[in-house]
């Protein structure tokens, strides 16, 4: 899957995401997502190189922790706490981001909002007790 195909699929399917390719090998996708009718607008960036897993970061607004928690739910340990959206459902050599990652970002934000207010992740996933 070439990066150009990823960009085309995103532009064809989503009005709230824009993509560009940098240095011919890095895909940057910027999106504005409102996961529910009462949510704020989140600015999110996906950085992707073929053969690696996408780095997904919420740029704004600042994400908050439920009182007493020390980490966001379902994020990687890397600096910037990139979102950890899948276990094995995404193949970084052939799957379209437009059909996977972008949909899962909405759900991550949706369930994050509930987690930030209740301390419980209701969206399913691995390590249910961890978050």
């Amino acid at each position: 899957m070439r990066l150009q195909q990823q960009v085309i699929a995103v532009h064809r399917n989503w009005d709230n995401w824009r993509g560009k390719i940098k240095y011919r090998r890095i895909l940057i996708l910027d999106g504005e997502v409102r996961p529910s009718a009462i949510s704020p607008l989140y600015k999110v960036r996906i950085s992707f190189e073929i053969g690696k897993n996408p780095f997904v970061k919420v740029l704004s607004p600042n994400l908050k922790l439920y009182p007493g928690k020390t980490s966001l739910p379902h994020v990687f340990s890397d600096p910037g706490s990139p979102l950890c959206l899948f276990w094995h459902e995404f193949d970084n050599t052939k799957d379209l981001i437009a059909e996977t990652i972008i949909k899962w970002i909405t759900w991550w934000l949706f369930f994050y909002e509930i987690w930030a207010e209740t301390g419980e992740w209701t969206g399913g996933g691995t390590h249910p007790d961890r978050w």
Partner: protein
Amino acid sequence: MQKLVSQDRKAFIDDMLKRITESLQLNATRRKLVEERYGAVSKFIEQSEGLFHDARIYAQGSYRLGTTVRPRQGDEFDLDFVVQIDRDWRNVPFNIVYNNFRRLMESNGNWGNLVEPKSRCIQLNYADEFHMDIIPTCTENQFGDKNRIMVPDRAEHNWVISNPEGYALWFEKKYIQQKDIYLHNFYPGMEIRAAQELPKDDPNHLKQPLQHAVQLVKRYRDIYFENRENLAPSSIVLTTLVAQLYNGENSIYDTINKFAQRFNESVAFERQYSRQFHVTNPVLPQEIFTKKWETDPKLFRAFIEFVNSLSQLWRELNEAMGNDLFELLKKSFGTGTFEDAYKKHGEFVAEMRKKEKTGIHRETGMAAGFGAAGVHRDKQNTFDGGRWLK
């Protein structure tokens, strides 16, 4: 095609309000326990020899109306029942009926030691969360209305008239025509259920906006008047007023919004004629629930301020987004209650997602019900985490 409850602001607010009332009332386990105990007490009374053999036994008050609210800390749910016999009350002294009933209840091996005599009722004080108040009564037998009853009142040293079943039927009539409930458009299966007759002890999800509204107004009263309970209006005043001013609104939000608005209009109307606004018993009009508003004007002022505060909250709820909205709900109904409700909202949406009824809107990225124009089909995933990306 069904919209997702979180993609519609009005539905989201009503869903949260409904779930807030869920965590305020008896849960399913407690409800079952109440039914069991009520069943056992009824059976015992019906099978007894003497005055109460073949009595008519039924629930009254908030349990009958489906408007119970968990009291603030320390207090117990208070569930009321009526034991009605067809004896001519004019020929029986009130204290004979009361004392006979008390002795009967005390004679039972299972709950005899829980009996606590009150002014009008026998209270069964169970060790857990609730008590049952049971009043022994006689049919009044005037006007051919079987629901009018005479209650022995030890404080008044006499019989007093009451009509709790008539009140419940009046309350039901206010909403029973209401089939088009806004939220039902967002719950799969509800379209069919709404058309069927509702069971008496209907679980919360089948309740009507009016019932939920009464529960919320009662809860708001408990929080608003905390530490100055002497100024708080009684539940019967709130229930009657909210029902009286209800005009078939199809959402919980609209019901309370219109209640506040119409209340102010009604007070202003009475004021034009220099009359005090009162709440009377709709089935016993001579009974004025708010006599004290006349003798103690600060109670009426406190009530007006209470409704104004509710009205202000409702305006803010209509505009607030995200955190601001959550803070309003926490402040007004309690943090734990809010958290419980929001978590259940999340579980409900997760369930919709698992059943593949969801999608994502292509313009906004909003989670949506699948099937409408501009909504992409969802794709299942497993959120992971806790390791390094690279």
